[in-house]
């Protein structure tokens, strides 16, 4: 029986939550957080100068918790549409394990705590950028864009792309060109990544009233845009090597990864709709995750090894 059901039966009785710690952890969107940790760490490691390991750890933790807080705020606001989609209906709020007010309070408290900690530990530019990231994801994307325009994840992708900029600012106190390039990689990667999933889940998005690109512009147009964004992504992905702040290993990984992404995007464009199209969409979705982990994983690995040697 959900908490809402209990309250309906006993309206005057105090509600006792059955939420477990893992439910609160799920509110933080841990899989997104793992990507934020990797990209923020990459932003820190490409920055010039040295950062004490304890300060570096605390700042990455703050950025990850800030990203998690924005995830909790997103789940609070979107619980009505999350309940309508199979992918999201088991989330803590729509399933009734956590009350919406608790998710809101959890998100707000962690937002303040993460921004204040980052400001005290590093600098207030980094803290301001983290606060802007949370605001952009929770308010600009979740509350404003998501239910209004098929460009929702294009513009909203800026929130997911900001962690390396925050990490760089935490290390240096300013926003460097290197971090802007990392921002651009994630920003251009976001549309093909999300639209590949949206092609398969378009019926659910349609039922929930979310105007994703396939629902509004159609499947063919979405597949074309995925291909165009992936064509743009391949050279941008290699830019850290071409601009000289990542090694040849990174350059090879980026070019190979970009070619594989391009192959799967072209295949999706060619096969069209139907079961084969769905299969190609999910393959591109999976490959896109591996691509981003590969690029940022190589940056982190080579900078970490260089620091240890």
């Amino acid at each position, binding site marked *: 029986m959900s908490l809402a059901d209990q309250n309906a039966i006993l309206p005057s009785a105090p509600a*006792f939550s059955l939420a477990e710690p893992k439910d609160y952890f799920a509110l933080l969107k841990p899989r997104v957080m793992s990507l934020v940790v990797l990209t923020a760490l990459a932003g820190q490691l490409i920055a010039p100068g040295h950062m*004490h390991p304890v300060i570096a750890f605390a700042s990455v933790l703050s950025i990850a918790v800030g990203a998690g807080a924005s995830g909790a705020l997103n789940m609070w606001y979107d619980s009505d549409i999350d309940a309508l989609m199979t992918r999201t209906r088991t989330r803590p709020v729509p399933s009734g394990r956590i009350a919406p007010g608790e998710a809101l309070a959890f998100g707000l408290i962690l937002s303040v705590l993460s921004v204040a900690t980052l400001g005290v530990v590093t600098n207030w530019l980094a803290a301001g950028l983290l606060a802007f990231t949370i605001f952009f994801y929770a308010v600009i994307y979740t509350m404003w864009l998501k239910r209004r325009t098929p460009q929702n994840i294009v513009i909203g992708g800026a929130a997911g792309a900001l962690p390396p900029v925050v990490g760089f600012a935490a290390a240096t106190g300013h926003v460097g060109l290197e971090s802007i390039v990392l921002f651009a990689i994630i920003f251009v990667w976001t549309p093909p990544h999300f639209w590949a999933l949206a092609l398969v889940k378009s019926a659910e998005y349609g039922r929930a009233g979310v105007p994703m690109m396939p629902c509004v512009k159609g499947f063919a147009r979405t597949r074309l845009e995925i291909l165009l964004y992936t064509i743009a992504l391949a050279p941008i992905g290699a830019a850290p090597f071409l601009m000289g702040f990542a090694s040849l290993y990174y350059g090879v990984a980026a070019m190979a990864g970009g070619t594989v992404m391009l192959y799967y995007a072209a295949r999706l464009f060619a096969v069209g709709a139907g079961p084969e199209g769905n299969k190609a969409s999910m393959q591109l979705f999976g490959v896109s995750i591996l691509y981003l982990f590969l690029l940022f994983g190589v940056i982190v690995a080579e900078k970490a090894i260089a620091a240890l040697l």
Partner: protein
Amino acid sequence: MKEAAPPRPAPELTAAQLRSRRARNTAIGLAIGALVILFYAITVVKLGPGILNRPL
């Protein structure tokens, strides 16, 4: 004088509610403990040798 209403009896919690409350309390305790250790380490790192250099 109006008599005070009798105190409302505390509702009995089910085993599942008690278990989840204990798990939440443990998680909050561990998180606060980890934050104390983290902030202590940050303080030492940021102040460095100057940690003892203060007017008495």
